[in-house]
């Protein structure tokens, strides 16, 4: 399964949940904001949503700014 994460192409062996994608990328779940195919996903739903072929994920966070 190939999808785009933050504009880059990522290949995974099989379809997996957002939760599993974040695990495989070793990302901190607490800080992250996830947009899946332009839809914002709540943290509690990370295990429900499956990332499929050609899907687009945006993994966002808050950073310093003024």
């Amino acid at each position: 399964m190939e999808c785009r994460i933050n504009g880059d192409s990522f290949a995974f062996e099989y379809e997996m949940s957002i939760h599993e994608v974040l695990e495989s990328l070793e990302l901190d779940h607490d800080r992250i904001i996830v947009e899946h195919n332009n839809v914002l996903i709540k943290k509690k739903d990370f295990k429900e949503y499956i990332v499929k072929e050609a899907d687009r994920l945006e993994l966002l966070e808050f950073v310093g700014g003024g």
Partner: protein
Amino acid sequence: MFKIGPFELESRLLLGTGKFENEEIQSGAIAESGTEVLTFAVRRMNLYDKNLPNPLANVDLNDFITFPNTAGAKTAEEAVRIAEIASHAGVCDMIKVEVIGDDKTLLPDPLGTYEACRVLLKKGYVVCPYTSDDVVLARKLEELGVHAIMPLASPIGTGRGISNPLNMRYIVEQANVPVIVDAGIGSPKDACHAMELGADAVLLNTAISAAKDPVKMARAMKLGIEAGRLSYEAGRIPVKYTAQASSPADGLGFL
């Protein structure tokens, strides 16, 4: 005390969180500033270098009134999208609407800003637009229903102080919502100046985070803002062209 939408604020210093060297300095500056409101931005996570420092990651935003910005947006649509992301994450008590219209000067796009405010107000946000020091735009945004006006002192990060104090005064005098001077402040003198002109508050970032000692500068800014506010309330003397003696002119016969 002053109010932005439903929020009652004691501190008149709003603090941006950009460009702090590390978490310790940032936390120290936040504490010394006495701020109740923190501004921050939304960005893509770096997926490749997870060791990049993010001083904001360790700040408990629940302790503050959260005031994300839409920095990076060049259109109203992009600004609304950023606001929706921050709101979805539960840290958008108020939104700082920032739509940049010129890459070189980073001056805001007045039309894009107005449109973003219109949409966000309809969606129920507490909306505070970052604007140029344009008196008519400030009035039109207020008529639209924004909760505060945030005119720039000077372009972002220049530290030049208030470029057009006359316009700033006009904006303050006509406004029925808080005026928060945003961007371009360089030193406590500038922050004090903004407050003496009657601004309700000042939003600072680089002037503190890029100072040699940001923690000390945070305190200096706090004091500058307090001094300026007191001066505004006390009412300064008029500027005169000729000297006016402080000591009596009478009783000099002994000389």
